[in-house]
């Protein structure tokens, strides 16, 4: 459990470094939600939630929860100065219209061509895609933040996704607890690698071959 928490923290920490000061960002449910805790102090972003708000803040203090003020994960949240509200139709004009600088979301599988699968496993219960398909189709930068491999140690970064897709050729960056890859036209390019993992192990845990950036940087894994 503690190890899982460390992984989640490492992923969120790295994903936070992909954002720039002034970005408008949508964070998906789970690990992506943690990203706002690890932003560098000089990076101020505005958070979008697809149920109709820009500029939401942290969870409220106990006793100050407002049932009319939630995020897309149905969690109670708060207002920051300068926030605003809108309907779902305007919210997705923001998303689909390319107005968001970035979205960070989890995934079950990602391919070397930027396909992403994160909404259904055939034969299992289906929760629905929610806003994920619009998000990956519309945000300027689609950042996947996920664990590098499955619980059984199988790669989640694949040549081709086996699960039904959420979007085709839409992912820009893949952030895991072990590495950061850019999805380029010629395939994956390794930009950052955790010191805790060897290049051989990283290759073993990543199905497609990948190029290594000339400016490969290290990050300290938890």
């Amino acid at each position: 459990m503690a190890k899982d928490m460390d992984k989640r923290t490492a992923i969120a920490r790295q994903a936070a470094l992909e954002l720039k000061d002034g970005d408008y960002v949508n964070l998906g449910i789970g690990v992506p939600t943690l990203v706002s805790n690890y932003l560098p102090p000089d990076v101020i972003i505005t958070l979008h939630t697809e149920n109709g708000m820009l500029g939401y803040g942290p969870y409220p203090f106990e006793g100050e929860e407002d049932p009319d003020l939630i995020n897309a994960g149905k969690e109670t949240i708060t207002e920051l100065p300068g926030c605003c509200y809108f309907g779902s139709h305007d919210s997705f004009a923001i998303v689909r219209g390319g107005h968001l600088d970035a979205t960070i979301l989890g995934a079950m599988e990602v391919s070397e061509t930027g396909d992403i699968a994160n909404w259904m496993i055939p034969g299992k219960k289906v929760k629905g895609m929610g806003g994920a398909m619009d998000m990956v189709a519309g945000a300027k930068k689609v950042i996947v933040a996920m664990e590098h491999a499955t619980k059984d140690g199988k790669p989640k970064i694949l040549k081709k996704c086996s699960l039904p897709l959420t979007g085709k050729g839409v992912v820009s960056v893949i952030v895991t607890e072990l590495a950061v890859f850019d999805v380029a036209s010629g395939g994956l390019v390794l930009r950052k690698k955790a010191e805790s993992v060897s290049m051989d192990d990283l290759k073993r845990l990543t199905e497609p071959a990948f190029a290594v950036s000339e400016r490969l940087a290290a990050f300290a894994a938890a």
Partner: protein
Amino acid sequence: MPGKVVAGPEEALSDLRDGAVIMVGGFGLCGTPENLLAAVKAKGTKNLTLVSNNGGTDEHGNGQLIKNGQVKKMIMSYGGECKAFEEMALAGTLQVEWNPQGTLAERIRAGGAGIGGFFTPTGYGTLVAEGKETRVIDGRNYVFENPLRADFAFIKAWRGDRAGNLVFRKTSRNFNQVMATAAQVVVAEVEKLVEPGELDPDSVHTPGIFVDRIFQGAQYAKPIEKRTVRPRAGAAA
């Protein structure tokens, strides 16, 4: 000028029949038309098709009607936390049409705005695009989506006046605003019904022309699905 104000949900739903298609506003349990949904449950109307973002929970929102066996089909984007929905959808006793959330919103917007459909990049190359027309526009792939309309729309607002003008509060606006444009009969329930002139015209979110019937809800439970809080600074750890 005929009045739009009705005494309550029972009068508002006097002509609701089995098999109706109903748009239900709300996101999760936020901004749901609580009094109208309770009245549909009491009335026992069956074979309903609900157009709504979520399935609600077993006790609240759309989930109470699903659990009660009153719903034939859901047109939605996220099933979420409703156990009855999961069981019935898996067993095939409830039909589900999945729509990406933005596509759902835009189909409703198109339906209400007299637009005969639209091309969206959302869902291209995925299951939701199967069987649909696609087109390349400026080098990008798009999927054609049809407009959506309904027999009824159930809208929940914070304030409303006798002319049907509505004001929503915070994130409870969600699908309510767009759904108010896209049904044959639009019923709005409000936390407080006021006289014309009491709402600031510059701050009206839904113009009264879209609303056919309006009433002040008897009460609002406003359940919270996920109560998330943070500790106060200086509080004992």
